[in-house]
């Protein structure tokens, strides 16, 4: 079992490869470079990168790289999958609320900023796509943030590349892609962090080929004008989601679906979120509410490793 750990995309990345192959180990060592390349394209905190140029295109047609095209398509799929609850068009809302730089650089007391009152995110349906040329027209009022989706996409891609050498688990800041069971047929044991005691986990999952992701308002929070804000924006209001869910963890066939679903459940709140989660038999999850209550979806049990 080989593993590599590094920081990228504002998060801790861990890649574990279940093989003793030298070629696999060499490929594993290249994972940080892959993430750096993807971050350079997809991060909204890299001025002048391709995403930044697209956001500054002011309604002009722009041809984009295959990577950005794929992530944009994934973002639109996530939007469709969640009925619009997860949208890439929330950049302006995040910036207005004070999340305009990498999270580590945010002031703990953000009183020095002056932003206009948050408005509704522009609709992604207004984007004009041209698949054969990988070009698109982004309306002037629409600006994109690919944060969570980009991380999920990167985890999926890296896991897929590494899976040629053996079973892989790739954890990109809590979004976990798993290529299949371990070499001996066992499931991967994956903990779910307790948001009230981050050093511990309250549940252990047993996962084979799947994705798992957690969305939460427990960490990426900041104070703006005396009011706590968090980064999960409800596209229906352009404001941080008002929800009784502190963290939502979802197991899905892929990490990108898990990431989008976890965010949607968090935005919807416990009752509607659980109902939405259970309406899709491919999804399972556990919600930790603000008051500490944990709610498990019907089919979550099969993923749990009982102590």
């Amino acid at each position, binding site marked *: 079992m080989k593993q590599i750990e590094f920081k990228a995309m504002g998060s801790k990345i861990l890649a574990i490869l279940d093989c003793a192959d030298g070629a696999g180990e060499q490929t594993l060592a290249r994972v940080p470079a892959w993430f750096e390349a993807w971050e350079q394209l997809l991060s909204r905190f890299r001025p002048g990168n391709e995403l930044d140029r697209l956001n500054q295109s002011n309604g002009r047609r722009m041809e984009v790289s295959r990577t950005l095209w794929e992530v944009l398509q994934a973002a639109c799929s996530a939007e469709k999958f969640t009925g619009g609850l997860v949208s890439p068009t929330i950049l302006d809302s995040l910036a207005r609320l004070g999340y305009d730089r990498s999270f580590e650089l945010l002031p703990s007391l953000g009183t020095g900023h002056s932003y206009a009152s948050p408005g509704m995110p522009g609709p992604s349906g207004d984007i004009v796509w041209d698949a054969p040329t990988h070009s698109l027209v982004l309306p002037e009022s629409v600006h994109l943030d690919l944060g969570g989706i980009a991380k999920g996409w990167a985890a999926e891609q890296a896991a897929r590349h590494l899976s040629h050498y053996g079973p892989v688990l790739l954890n990109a800041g*809590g979004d976990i892609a798993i290529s299949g069971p371990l070499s001996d047929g*066992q499931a991967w044991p994956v903990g779910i*962090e307790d*948001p009230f005691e981050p050093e511990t986990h309250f549940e*252990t999952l047993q996962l084979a080929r799947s994705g798992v992701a957690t969305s939460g308002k427990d960490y990426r929070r900041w104070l703006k004008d005396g009011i706590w804000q968090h980064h999960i924006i409800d596209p229906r209001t352009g404001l941080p989601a008002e929800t009784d869910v502190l963290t939502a963890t979802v197991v899905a066939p892929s990490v990108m679906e898990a990431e989008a679903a976890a965010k949607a459940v968090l935005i919807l709140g416990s*009752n509607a979120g659980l109902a939405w989660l259970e309406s899709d038999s491919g999804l399972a999850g556990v919600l930790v509410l603000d008051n500490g209550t944990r709610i498990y979806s*019907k089919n979550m049990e099969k993923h749990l*490793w009982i102590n």
Partner: protein
Amino acid sequence: MPNKSNNRWLDIQIILASLAVTSTMGLWNLFVKGSQPVASSTDNSNPNPTSTFVFTPNPTATAYPTATLDALAPVHLPKVHILLGGSLPVPVAAQPAASVSSQPASAPKSSGSTTTSAPKPVTKTSSSKP
């Protein structure tokens, strides 16, 4: 004057006699009724005493104000939760019973695994952290 004084004393005697008779009858009736209805209302074979309690008219009963009869009947206290401090518990919002639990109900099916004890996780999922 002596006649007037005698008349007043006579009046007092009549009043005292009336009070004595009334009190005697009242007390007697109290003790008599005190044994009968109580025994009836505590009869365990009757699941609902209030619905079958029959008051038998008794001539002496007229000496009682109706409030006394009411007082003999079993009193139904309203259902209240007495709390020693704190506030009244708020009922938990209804959740789909099948899907809500604080802990998993039973061991999950293990995918090819024979062990039921959880090993140390290789990693954790959490909300995104730097």
